Each structure stands twice: as structure tokens, then as C-alpha cells.
């Protein structure tokens, strides 16, 4: 008995020291590196799997409103129906195209506005820089929804902008700004600008000042120095900022619904209607999956590019 007990104690002791050794050797690194994977598994892959299952199900009047297929034939038929809509009904592909177009144009405007701002912040000194950064982040302290509502007040037919323009006599009758693509662009550029500025700032701030000095020393004007040195070295910041704007802007729902037109909805609106108005979960899931694929491809290209750039630099 005592012999046995002694044995089990010693074996657990060796086990513990083995675990300890594993931790010391590379266990911690593995655990730390594993956390993001675990996170992804839990909050991305699992929901994605559920959406996949729904996307290959059949719509039904039940709770939940779909039937999971149990035969190969049913599965094929469901896929054909659900994804068939996306190809055959122009509502969907115009929705995608519209979203991609609006997101792309908004990204370009964010870049055009955000680059000089990020550059200015990175070049400013100590206290000023902190204040400017604070100003960039400040809007986040107010609810996103409120800020979009505020734009309705500004852009409306009887809104502030029209009233001011009428008062100073630039226009004779109010401009139609609300419920146009213009308003959607304003809303998206306004909301996502900080996501462009911050990564660009982080990149430009690290840029070694002596590099631009060296270029000027070798005869380059400030403009040429910018094109030859600053711009190429800020490409990683540009790419990161553009991704941070483009990806969420593509799936944007609130801004186009509140500020945009009903006639050419973005895909987020289509998705919402499919879920909540049509209660067609399978088609809605199919829409979501295709959207994800549309966005995953550029992200993977971006990752590939970054990995290569890091390997070379």
C-alpha cells in the first residue's frame, strides 16, 4: 500500500516536472501563439461553420426557419437554389458591385484626406502631436449612430448646410443631399477616416527623418523627396489603412440605410432585408459567404504582399 502510494506520488512529480520543462522549453511560446488561433476558432470559424450549414439548407416556415439537408441530392439542390439567386437575380450582384464601388471610392477619399493629416501629425512636435491624435480619436467617444444622425441634420433639405448656403446666396433653392450616394460617401469617409489616419501616422512617425534629409542633400526638392523616399516607405501604412477602411465599408449597413437611397442598396442592406424581411436565412447566409469570399481574397493578397515585403526589407 505504502509502496503504491509512494509510486503514484513520484510519478505525478515527474509528470509535473515534465510539464514544467515543456513550459520552460517552448510551452509558453506555444500557448501565447495559440491564443489568437483559439480566438479565431471560437469567434470566427465556429460561426462561419454555422452560416455555412444554413447556406446549404432549405428555407422553411419553422423555427429556426430552415431545414438542414440530410441527403446528397438535397444538399446539391439547396446549393443550386440559394446560390442560384445570387447569380440570377440582379438585386444581389448589383448590391455587391455597388458596395465594392462605394467602398473603393470612399477608401480613395479617405487616403487623400488622411495622408496629409497623418503626415502633419507625424511631423508636429510633442504636445501638438498628442492633441492632434486626441482629436482624431475623439469622435469615438460619441455614439456612432448619433454621429450619423447628426449628418442628417447637416445634409437635409432644411439642414444646416442648405440654410447657410441659401442665406449667403450661393444657391437659390435647397440642394438634394440627403438620400443620395453623395451622402453615403460623406458618411463613410467621415466615419472611417480615423482608421486611415492612425496606421498611416504610425508608419510615418517611424520614418527616419535623416532619410529625407539625405535625399534633399543629394539634390532632390521636397516634392521629389516625397515621391522618392517618403511615399514608397509609407506603402505599408497606406495598405493597412486602406484595408481597415475598405473591408468594413464594403459590408456597411447603417450609413447607407440612414443617408443613402433605396434604389441601389449596398450588399449590407440586401443581407439585412433577406434575413429580417424575407426571413430567408439560407439565401442571406449565401450572401454573407460570398461577401466574405470577396473580402478574403484581397486580404490574403495583402498578407502575401506583406510577408514578402518583410522578407526583403
Amino acid at each position, binding site marked *: 500500500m505504502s509502496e503504491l502510494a509512494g509510486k503514484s506520488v513520484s510519478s505525478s512529480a515527474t509528470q509535473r516536472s515534465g510539464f514544467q520543462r515543456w513550459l520552460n522549453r517552448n510551452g509558453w511560446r506555444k500557448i501565447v501563439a495559440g491564443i489568437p488561433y483559439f480566438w479565431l476558432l471560437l469567434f470566427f470559424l465556429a460561426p462561419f461553420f454555422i452560416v455555412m450549414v444554413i447556406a446549404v439548407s432549405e428555407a422553411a416556415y419553422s423555427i429556426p426557419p430552415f431545414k438542414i439537408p440530410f441527403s446528397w441530392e438535397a444538399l446539391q439542390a439547396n446549393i443550386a437554389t440559394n446560390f442560384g439567386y445570387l447569380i440570377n437575380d440582379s438585386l444581389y450582384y448589383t448590391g455587391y458591385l455597388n458596395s465594392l464601388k462605394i467602398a473603393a471610392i470612399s477608401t480613395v477619399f479617405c487616403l487623400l484626406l488622411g495622408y496629409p493629416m497623418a503626415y502633419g501629425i507625424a511631423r508636429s512636435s510633442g504636445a501638438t502631436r498628442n492633441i492632434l491624435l486626441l482629436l482624431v480619436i475623439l469622435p469615438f467617444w460619441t455614439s456612432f449612430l448619433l454621429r450619423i444622425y447628426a449628418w442628417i441634420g447637416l445634409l437635409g433639405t432644411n439642414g444646416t448646410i442648405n440654410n447657410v448656403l441659401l442665406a449667403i446666396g450661393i444657391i437659390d433653392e435647397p440642394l438634394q443631399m440627403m438620400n443620395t450616394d453623395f451622402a453615403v460617401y460623406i458618411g463613410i469617409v467621415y466615419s472611417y477616416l480615423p482608421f486611415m489616419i492612425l496606421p498611416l501616422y504610425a508608419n510615418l512617425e517611424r520614418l527616419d527623418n*535623416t532619410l529625407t*534629409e539625405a535625399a534633399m542633400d*543629394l539634390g*532632390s526638392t521636397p516634392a521629389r523627396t516625397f515621391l522618392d523616399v517618403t511615399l*514608397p*516607405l509609407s506603402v505599408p501604412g497606406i495598405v493597412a489603412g486602406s484595408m481597415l477602411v475598405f473591408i468594413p465599408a464594403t459590408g456597411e449597413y447603417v450609413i447607407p440605410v440612414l443617408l443613402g437611397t433605396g434604389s441601389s442598396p449596398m450588399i449590407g442592406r440586401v443581407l439585412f432585408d433577406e434575413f429580417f424581411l424575407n426571413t430567408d436565412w439560407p439565401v442571406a447566409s449565401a450572401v454573407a459567404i460570398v461577401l466574405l469570399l470577396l473580402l478574403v481574397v484581397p486580404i490574403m493578397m495583402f498578407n502575401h504582399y506583406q510577408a514578402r515585403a518583410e522578407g526583403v*526589407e
Partner: protein
Amino acid sequence: MTADDSFIRIENVTKKFGEFVAVDNVSLDISKGELFALLGGSGCGKTTLLRMLAGFETPTSGRIIIDGQDMGDVQPFNRPVNMMFQSYALFPHMNVEKNIGYGLKHEAMSDGERKQRVSELLDLVQLGQFAARKPHQLSGGQRQRVALARALAKSPKVLLLDEPLGALDKKLREQTQFELINIQEELGVTFIVVTHDQEEAMTLASRIAIMDRGVIKQVGTPTDVYEFPTSRFTADFIGSINLFDGTVTSVKAGKARINAAKAGCTFEAPVSPGIKSGDAVGVAVRPEKISISRSRPKSTTVNAVQGEVLDLGYFGKDSLYRVKLESGELIRVNRVNDQRVEEADRQVDWDDKVWLTWDANSAIVLPEEP
């Protein structure tokens, strides 16, 4: 030197960062084709002075004139000056070839000429086989050579080199030093080289300016600053020296007698006219100017002192002795080993009582600084 043949004039230039004075009322005249060295300890303002010449810092007061033109309103990209940065400042996204050729990119020359020039420079710094590499794939010394080649590329009238050879090994360093001297002689480029290596300054430069805390202490040829230092700082900074506090007891015919209590002897040395009896001065002798012997010299009180050999360092071509005086002070003596002797037959050995003597002309009198 007259004002006319000075190519670079620095007139009463001061640079302040806030309250801190980095460069303090510096005036220098540098003539065309000169290889001028700025020598001084870390943080004494060498880089700041160069940056003002290149146009990256504006003097708080004073003027800089290059080739007859006041640089006050001239932008860095319009100055006839190229600089090699202390941190190299190589463009990380360009390979070696592109880095070196960058200054030529917007120059009016054919692609062929440009290629030719870049390959010449690559040969000069022996980096031909690394032409396609990016800076991060090079060693520290290789980067330094790329930076040097890039600064040379445009054959500017003035080259500012901030510690150009610090990261090179001894052989490559000497080679590059001679290369620099060649370039300077062939092309007539005016060089200003910053270094804190005094030996390098001595080999390279036709004149040296010694800086301390933003102030130029002395300007002169290598011989001037070594043999005739005008301040304690210079004497101490260049080479090694034995320095004592003393009081002038008499001055006669350009020679003074100085009583140095710590040394326990009287120095006789030539002095400049300003010095008079009763002045507190520093007196100094370089280690290699002192003779060491066991036999008693003629005079045992003037320019002679007795001590005991505390340490003996044998370095092959010369030996270094540290001799302890009666006062407890140490004197360093450096002797060339011009005879081949067995260790046992050494004239002077550990713990020997010895006499140290020196020539009156070898002693340096340094006036007390205001």
C-alpha cells in the same frame, strides 16, 4: 590666410537648442581643396556644425558663406555640398546601386554615363558584388562604404563626412583614408571630416579644429596642435601628456621658470609674451620627450626629477614607463626601443630609482583659461 582664398567661411556661428548652446560662436575659414578635420569628444557639436553647413539646421546667429555665396537662404538641395551622415541614412527600399546612384538620378547625364559612374564608385568602395543588395543585407562597414560612395557620387565642391570610417577595420580604414586623400588631391574637393579619432585626424587632415562643448579650442596643422597646444584641453585631448599645475617664478628672454609643486621640480620652458611672473599656469611634457636614466643628470632641479619605476609596458617598438615621483604623482615616459637587449640587460627596470630629464624646448606652458 586671407579672407579671399577661404572657400568656406563660418562667421560667428552659434546654434542653440532651446537654452542649450550646441555650437558657440564658431568662426572658421577653410580654403579650397583643403582636407579639414573636426575633432572633439562626443556631444561637442561636430554634427550640429556639419548640419548647419548642409542646411539642415539654421544658425541661431552668424553666417555661413560657401564659394562666395551666403548660405542663409539657400535650401539644402541647392547647396554645393554633399554630406555623409553619421547614421548613414541609406534608403532602405533601394539597393546599393540605386542608393549610390540616387544623386545622379536627376542629373543631366546619359544612362550610360550614370551606370559608368556608379560602377566606378562601387569599385572604389569595393562593393561591386553587393550592388543588388538592400542596405539591411549589409554589414555595418559595408553600409558605411555605401554611404561614402553615395556622398561622393555627385563630385560636389564640398564634402561633409560625419565619422566616415568609424566602422571599418584597420586595414580597410587605412586604405580608405588614402583613397580620400587621393580624391581630395585629384578632384580638388574640399573635405570637412568629423572624427573623434585623433590619429585619423592626424593622418587625414591638413588642418584640424579641436572642439569642446561647442567652442573651437584650437585650429592648426597636426604638428601645431600636437606640439604647440594652446590650451589644457587641446594638450590633454591630443595624444597623452604629463600635465602639472605651476606658478611662474621668473621670465627672462622668452623663457620662464615655473615651479610645479606636484612634480617637485622647476620647469624651464619657452613662453609666449603674455606670461609674467606670478602667473598660475599649466606645464606639460609629452611622454616621448622625456629621457629616463639611472645616472644622475647635470642639473637635478631644473627640467629633471627623480622617481621610481612603478610599471613597465613593453610594446615591441617602444616601451611605456610609469614613474612614481616623491610627491606621489605619476609621470608617463615613452621610449623607443632602438637597441636589441635581453630582458635581464635592460637599462631601466621595475622598481629602479631613475632620473627623468627633458629638453627646455619640450616643455609646454599652458596659460590658465579665463
